């Protein structure tokens, strides 16, 4: 079985888990939550296996490299990171709601990667610019950052209903704050490693390439989210709204920038 088949199957496992989660939420059956969780865990394990299989396949082709070098591979990893953070970091009652948002998004990313004719899914050798040890660390940290911001925005939607106060033990507000902060740390590491790599490859750590500029815009928006959150001491509607603007910025940094000319055309 090829990694592509595994990833295709995982797409449907996530969709199945999403269906179960909707049934659980509508019927109010709490025990469905466990079933959704374990289905998602199974899908996640297969997803991880798919990534390792693709890695292995690239070595069999004699052009071995970590599978993080084109749009297809980045979509697969983004989807995986989002599910990882949800499974590991989200606890309690609120998990059922978060799952209902994350699972279809993860399936959509995999489906787009696997089935869209516009996404090239063949394993390609690395061009000279990508042949660097910084590739893996830069891409992994950036996408873990994106994924944490994504999960935070789901909490943001939940918290738009009303203020969440972590000091009163509101789990959604606490998890929102942690996701934003973890995302900010990963994304900062992603930007820093990217600039070290750019310095090695092109002799400039920052070149105002559209991807770099949009990464800075995203970083600034989340800096604003954190300032608002700390200033008020709670997750107000305003903070939640900022995080949704942040998500739009993340999506544009990832997808939209490809329509602007720049050096990150491969991702």
């Amino acid at each position, binding site marked *: 079985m090829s990694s592509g088949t595994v990833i295709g199957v995982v797409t449907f496992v996530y969709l199945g888990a999403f269906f179960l989660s909707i049934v659980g939420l509508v019927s109010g059956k709490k025990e469905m939550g466990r079933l959704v969780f374990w289905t998602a865990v199974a899908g996640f394990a297969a997803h991880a296996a798919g990534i390792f299989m693709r890695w292995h396949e690239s070595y069999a082709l004699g052009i071995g490299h970590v599978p993080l070098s084109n749009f297809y591979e980045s979509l697969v990893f983004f989807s995986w990171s989002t599910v990882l953070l949800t499974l590991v970091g989200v606890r309690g009652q609120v998990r059922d709601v978060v799952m209902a948002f994350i699972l279809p998004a993860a399936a959509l990313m995999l489906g787009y990667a696997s089935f869209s004719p516009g996404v090239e899914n063949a394993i390609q050798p690395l061009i000279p610019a990508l042949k660097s040890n910084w590739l893996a660390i830069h891409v992994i940290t950036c996408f873990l950052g994106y994924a944490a911001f994504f999960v935070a925005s789901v909490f943001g939607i939940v918290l738009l209903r009303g203020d969440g106060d972590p000091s009163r*033990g509101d789990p959604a507000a606490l998890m929102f704050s942690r996701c934003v902060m973890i995302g900010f740390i990963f994304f900062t590491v992603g930007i820093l490693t990217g600039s070290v790599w750019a310095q090695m490859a092109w002799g400039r750590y920052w070149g105002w390439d559209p991807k770099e500029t949009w990464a800075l815009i995203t970083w600034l928006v989340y800096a604003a989210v954190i300032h608002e959150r700390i200033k008020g001491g709670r997750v107000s509607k305003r903070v939640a709204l900022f995080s949704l603007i942040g998500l739009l910025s993340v999506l544009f940094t990832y997808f939209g920038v490809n329509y602007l000319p720049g050096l990150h055309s491969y991702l």
Partner: protein
Amino acid sequence: MLFTISLLCLVGTIFPQGGHVHGWAARIPRLISPYDIFHSVWFLGAGLLLCVNLTLCMRKRLSLKRRGLIMLLLHGSIVLIIAGYAVGFAGLDGYLEIPQGSSVSQAVLKNGAPFDLGFTVRCDRFTMELYENGMPKEFVSDLSFLRGGRVDGQAQLRVNHPARFSGISLYQESYRQSAWADMTLSDGKRLMKFKAEQGEVIPLPSPGIQIRVEKVWSDLMGAGPAVKLLIEGPDGGSYLWVFRDIDTIRARMPDLFEKMPAFDPSSFRPYTFSLHRLESSYATGIGVKRDPGAPLVAVGGVLFLVSLLLLFLAPGAGFVPGSGSGTAPGESHGEKDPAPDAQGEGGRA
């Protein structure tokens, strides 16, 4: 402040940056132009304001309490990064193009001005490796650095593997391949020799007719060396493809000239073109840089990351369980304000 800078950045990705502009846009002074936003007074002003803002915030919270110190470090490191970036403007940012076997001792700066390196760089060899599918695998320049006519150092340059000589860093950036062909032209009586290099224009003995060399291939679709010519006369132009191995190709496809008259070297009467030998050479494209601000930026980046981690782990910041707002789900306590010393932090940023 953060949103203002974000908006300026956004403008920078909408308008093409740093290139040549035409029409009304060219009349905007460069210092306020949206086409060079990152060097405009708007952006530099916003950066300066951010530094002032951060410095004032830091002064306000200048306390010896642990969190105060972390905040000081966190915001101070951003000022350090911006300062390092500004220092970088005094650095060197240029480009060298060295044909294989040649030497160059002047770089071309971004504004087109020449810059004396203080030494000479010779490209001993440029190699381009390809994967089986034709994608580039590696670009390698073997360089020698000369001072006073003597070799003072050598380096092998690859993408992602820069070299350093005399305080200047060199980066493999690009390459250029040039090819030329030895050709002859016969009108049945006389033989005329010429060298065909892309872009060259050669007048023919017939008045008003000239040939323009459109392209030179070392191998055109597996059929060997070839040259595409545009024959321009008073009645317009016509294309002609001249192959070195035309006899071999015709042996395989006897009806070639009937199908593709433009491949017939005698189709433009009374002339017959022949291609004898093809030579090609590479020139390597090398970036030359010196950035005195880079170490400051690096220190700023590391300090920022360290203080960000400290802040995340600090009790009272509201991110980890413990004191302050970082309460684990289900726990509750009476503290209303989770981070009293965080009031007004970067509030107007």
